[in-house]
């Protein structure tokens, strides 16, 4: 299993349209906070993993640009990409470097600057994320379109409605209203969501996460080093990772993401947990709600509830604070924003804050189990990462 690894520092930029900063300045906002919270400096870091998808932004080698700006030049450096799960892949990459004993202190930085290109160009780039030649070139799918294929199938099979989907947006906007780092710090009501225009039927504008600029950073350390740095480490209990077919036509089912299911089972197994009725293990979850339907499928892929019952969970308010399991108290991708490469790192930073009772007023979960779970999906179930964090040191 390797060595134990703890999160010892976190940083998070304001998410939104951030044309007040360039990509390196944006990444620095998070890197600086991570250094400060860990009481470390650039010289202490032995390994740097930068997640960025890019295409829409100017720098083709974002890792070196960010690294130079942050005084990290000279360190072993990687740019990692797993579409919208790039952030989790950067955390996993850094985790492996520490866990394997290669280094004692590693940093994962996620950054994305999507607003350097006009919206239709961004829509084009994300739409190409699948099998470009066979599914985009002729048929022009968009990212909402891919998830709409799942929404249509899910709603048809289980009887969920567009109103049910909107409940996810309402909840996540509600919590984003308490998050100063969120892109949309405002609550919405059902008519606002229901009356928004279709972007890819049956999904509407308010079912979708926005185009976002943002960054997040975490510093990971080995047990021995973590002890010296902090009294309140957050341990990475396990990471599960899996992938799905590039072509959507090769999928057997459109009511759940198989890759996410496999990643979840792997994470549960490594952490010594059962993989059914799993909500009871966690105080809080951050799940990949790039679209409202994605959050509903996440409840099921993570085993919080049985297949077909995910939409009931949000309909009954069970994923608010006080319910079965609070989900996306950051506002989620939906309202906090979804800077593609930063999202997974943001989830780990957010859950570390939650576990340490450091979240903003109005969106702090009650911490009893001392355990939290992050679910981060790349593309349309093309990549999936499930990361379990905890206050207790993982068992040997």
């Amino acid at each position, binding site marked *: 299993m390797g060595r134990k690894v703890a999160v010892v520092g976190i940083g998070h930029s304001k998410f939104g*349209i951030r*044309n*007040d900063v360039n990509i390196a300045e944006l990444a620095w906002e998070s890197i600086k906070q991570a250094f400060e919270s860990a009481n470390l400096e650039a010289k202490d870091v032995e390994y740097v993993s930068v997640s960025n998808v890019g295409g829409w932004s*100017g720098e083709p080698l974002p890792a070196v640009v960010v690294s130079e700006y942050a005084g990290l030049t000279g360190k072993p450096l990687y740019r990692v990409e797993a579409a919208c799960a790039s952030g989790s892949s950067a955390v996993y990459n850094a985790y492996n470097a520490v866990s394997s004993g290669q280094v004692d202190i590693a940093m994962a930085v996620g950054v994305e600057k999507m607003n350097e290109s*006009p*919206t*239709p*160009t961004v*829509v*084009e780039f994300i*739409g*190409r994320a699948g*099998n470009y*030649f*066979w*599914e*985009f070139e*002729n*048929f*022009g*799918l*968009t990212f*909402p*379109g891919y998830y*709409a*294929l*799942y*929404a*249509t*199938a899910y709603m*048809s099979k289980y009887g969920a409605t567009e109103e049910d989907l909107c409940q996810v947006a309402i909840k996540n906007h509600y919590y984003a209203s308490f998050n100063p780092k969120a892109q949309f710090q405002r609550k919405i009501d059902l008519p606002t969501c229901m009356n928004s*225009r*279709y*972007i*890819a*039927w*049956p*999904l509407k504008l308010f079912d979708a996460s926005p185009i976002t600029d943002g960054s997040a950073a975490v510093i990971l350390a080995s047990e021995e080093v973590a002890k010296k740095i902090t009294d309140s480490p957050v341990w990475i209990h396990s990471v599960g990772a899996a992938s799905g077919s590039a*072509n*959507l*036509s*090769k*999928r057997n089912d*459109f009511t759940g993401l198989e890759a996410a299911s496999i990643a979840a089972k792997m994470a549960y197994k490594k952490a010594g947990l059962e993989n059914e009725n799993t909500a009871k293990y966690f105080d809080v979850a951050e799940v990949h709600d790039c679209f409202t339907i994605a959050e509903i499928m996440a409840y099921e892929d993570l085993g919080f509830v049985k297949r077909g019952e995910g939409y009931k969970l949000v309909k009954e308010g069970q994923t608010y604070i006080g319910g079965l399991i609070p989900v996306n108290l950051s506002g989620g991708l939906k309202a906090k924003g979804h800077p593609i490469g930063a999202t997974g790192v943001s989830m780990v930073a957010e859950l570390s804050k939650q576990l340490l009772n450091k979240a903003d007023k109005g969106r702090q979960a009650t911490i009893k189990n001392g355990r939290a779970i992050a679910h981060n999906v790349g593309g349309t179930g093309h990549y999936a990462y499930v990361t379990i964090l905890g206050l207790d040191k993982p068992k040997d």
Partner: protein
Amino acid sequence: MPKSQKEEAIEFLKQMESFANTMKSSVGLPMIVDPKTNVAIWYDQRELTLKFMISVEKTRKFFESLSEGKLLATKCVKTGEILFPPQVDCPSSLDSEVEWVELPKDGELTTYTIITTKPFSFSHYNDYTVGIAKLSNGVQVLAWVRETDPKKLRIGMKVKLEIVKREPEGYLTYEFVPV
């Protein structure tokens, strides 16, 4: 007539460019101050057109057969597995022994969506439906479905694959037609 999404996008870029040109002639820099946020943005002076040259040599037969009205897939000789999109290597038997087989045209709709907000390079089309259908031999194909009224679409409905000429580009491709 309302502007197409492509016209809107091009107009937006032209507007940005004209702002930048004004700034170049006044302060000598392509620096635009965003009226919403009051921050300065450099309007990139370099431009790149992306146009890829993608090899279809190994799957040439698939494309050439479209003009004969046929949609082909490959079949791994050793395992019998039918591959679509066609591929000429069989990872499960670690060989390249494939034969070309014609796909049946009839199928049932597995799922679908109607795209209204389009990618830049598709923004000249009217709204279009993308669906995945399972053909009678079990192979799934993703393509446009010739129906954009959600009331007339449902999962499980019978569809037929047709080889069509995609306009305005004028090239052969395939789409589903409700039966």
